[in-house]
């Protein structure tokens, strides 16, 4: 077998050289087959080994020499994929892909991603778009803060869910809130009952429901779900929070104008006012008791929110004359 000298002092036969050329030819032709032809085992091996060798040989210098800025590369790649025939974009992408295997693989992946998205276009659900745009209507800034809070909330949830000590602390805090809520409601029934007269706002109810559903599967946890860890523990805040939990009433800011008992009495007939007040107090006590009874139950599961099972409840004992139908109906 005739031996000839190539480079690096290696001797190869002409048969081998011919085979090398044939293999490299096959490499050049392979993409033109457009994926229909399965490469020979030899070509597959060449692709695999050469890719690895060239990658390892080129990786170290390229990473330190010419790392293309990702933003610049993205813009150039987008220009290429938009069929924008710009020489600069071509050069940028070419340079990046030649110097970095990661950039080359990323570009291939990006191309496949765009094709997949283009092949299965979908319309975003309107409610999701509205949710995204909702903060714009309320305020024009703060999207970053929101995102940060969301991330922190996620992390916090992860941390909290992994800590039983924290859970115990939260249960204890919830128990304390329940005690405060109970005493506050009794006190309020005796002092400012008209507050209880207001039916809950649907939005507030929905908020409570969602918080209960997502955060607190167990019985004592609905209170935890609404209690904000960062909220100042002022007395007014606690009472307001407790009030919102013991009854379906929304947690609204307590203002003097919202409480009839606090408003100056301007009517000329004190007896009529007294009669009205008495009736209002009775109604309020009845509804508050019914609501408190309801708050002790699991989350409402249907239309029997105040159904026949309420017969033995403290509410019915306190106000036996009040029929179930007299309970406040959700608006």
């Amino acid at each position, binding site marked *: 077998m005739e031996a000839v*000298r*190539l480079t690096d002092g290696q001797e190869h036969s*002409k048969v081998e050289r011919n*085979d*090398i*050329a044939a*293999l*490299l030819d096959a490499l*050049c*032709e*392979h*993409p*033109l087959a*457009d*994926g229909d032809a399965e*490469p020979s085992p*030899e070509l597959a091996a060449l*692709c*695999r080994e*050469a890719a690895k*060798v*060239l990658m390892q*040989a080129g990786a170290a210098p390229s*990473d330190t020499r010419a*790392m293309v800025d*990702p933003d610049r590369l*993205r*813009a150039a*790649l*987008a220009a*290429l*994929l*938009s069929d*924008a*025939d*710009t020489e600069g*974009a071509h050069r940028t*992408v*070419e340079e990046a*892909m030649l110097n*970095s*295997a*990661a950039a080359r*693989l*990323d570009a*291939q992946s990006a*191309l*496949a*991603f*765009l094709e997949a*998205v*283009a092949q*299965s276009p979908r319309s975003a*659900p309107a409610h*999701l778009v509205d949710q995204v745009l909702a903060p714009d209507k309320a305020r024009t800034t703060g*999207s970053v803060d*929101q*995102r940060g809070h*969301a991330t922190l909330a996620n992390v916090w949830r*992860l941390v909290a869910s992994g800590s039983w000590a924290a859970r115990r602390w939260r249960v204890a805090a919830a128990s304390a809130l329940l005690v405060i809520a109970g005493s506050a409601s009794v006190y309020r029934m005796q002092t400012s009952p008209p507050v209880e007269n207001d039916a809950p706002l649907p939005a507030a109810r929905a908020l409570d429901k969602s918080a209960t559903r997502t955060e607190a599967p167990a019985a004592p946890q609905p209170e935890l779900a609404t209690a904000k860890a960062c909220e100042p523990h002022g007395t007014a805040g606690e009472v307001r929070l407790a009030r919102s939990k013991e009854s379906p009433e929304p947690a609204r800011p307590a203002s003097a104008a919202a409480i009839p008992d606090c408003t100056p009495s301007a009517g000329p007939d004190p007896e009529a006012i007294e009669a009205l007040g008495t009736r209002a107090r009775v109604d309020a006590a009845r509804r508050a008791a019914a609501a408190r009874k309801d708050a002790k139950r699991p989350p409402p599961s249907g239309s029997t929110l105040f159904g026949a099972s309420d017969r033995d409840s403290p509410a019915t004992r306190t106000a036996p004359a009040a029929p179930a139908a007299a309970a406040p109906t959700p608006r």
Partner: protein
Amino acid sequence: MTAPFDPDQTTLAAALRGDAGAAAALTRAAADLTWSACACVTRSDAEAEEAFHEVMAGLRADGFVRLKGYDGRAGVRVYMALVVRDLLAERAIRFLALDATRGWRAFEAFFAEDMRRMIARMLPGNDHHQDRQDAYQSVCEALLQNDLQRLRAYGGRGSPSGFILHVIENLIIDYVRTVLPRRRLPVSIARLTELDRSVFRLLYWERIAPDPAILLGHLAASKPPPTLTALAETIARVRAALPHGYAAQCRKQSIDISAADALMPAAGAEDFAVATPEEQLVNSQAGRLLEQAVSALQRALPRLEPTERLYVQLALAGLPARKIAPLMGLPVASVHKLAQRVKGRLREEVGGEEAVKKWRLSV
């Protein structure tokens, strides 16, 4: 590839200036695109919704700061799609750091297609169906090993998704190296037709029962599919050509490719039948040829033009011409011309030495 969306540069410019109306319009314009992208890389509607909210928040953060790199050359929505892809990749990586289970689900949903595509390029054909599945499994196991050590090695330079894909490609190559060298066809079988070789692989590598009807199911993608009679004849031909004493080779369940990093034999790899002297000669010749071809390519590449070099790199990655064309910003016809040019250059490089000239004269 034609840009799938119309650009809306005016809206983007206004949104970047802080125009609230333009920001809302741009958000709406991005919504369908983002939703489609999220649906592609999530497993359920609930996950898609969650991803949608996060990606849209990331897109709109700081007054669309992620879109500030847009330089006006591309379609706005093509650029946005690339940004959305980056945000989804970052999200998957962030989840990995926070919650392994959830993070892996997001990670796999995002990178699974890339992994499968790369595996399919290195293990093409019907015969490697099981190998591809094993490769996917092994790569996933290797990524998860040591608390995601490979993924955590990302140093923050360049694209994180590019880094991860690079890691994945190396793992796939390692896996394929552990499998294919041990799967060399016996010389007598290698001389047979493609159908014969496929049947041999199914019978002796995949351990499929020698029933023509069953084999036909595994060869359904062959064009044209063989008849049952032809398959029966093929089985007989393969058996007749089989080297004396050749044993069927068991398939392993999985290969620990993490061991391949340390150049150690893969755990679980089976012992193959001892090659005959003829096979040993062929194997050594093939190994030498491969080594020489790789080194020839290594020598030739620096002397090629950048565009030619890139073509070789993409060809080595197994990309077809229609995929190479958009990445190189060339029409497919130009890719064909480029291929011929590169072929000529490589032939020159291989044959440019004095000894080769002598060889040419001798021929």
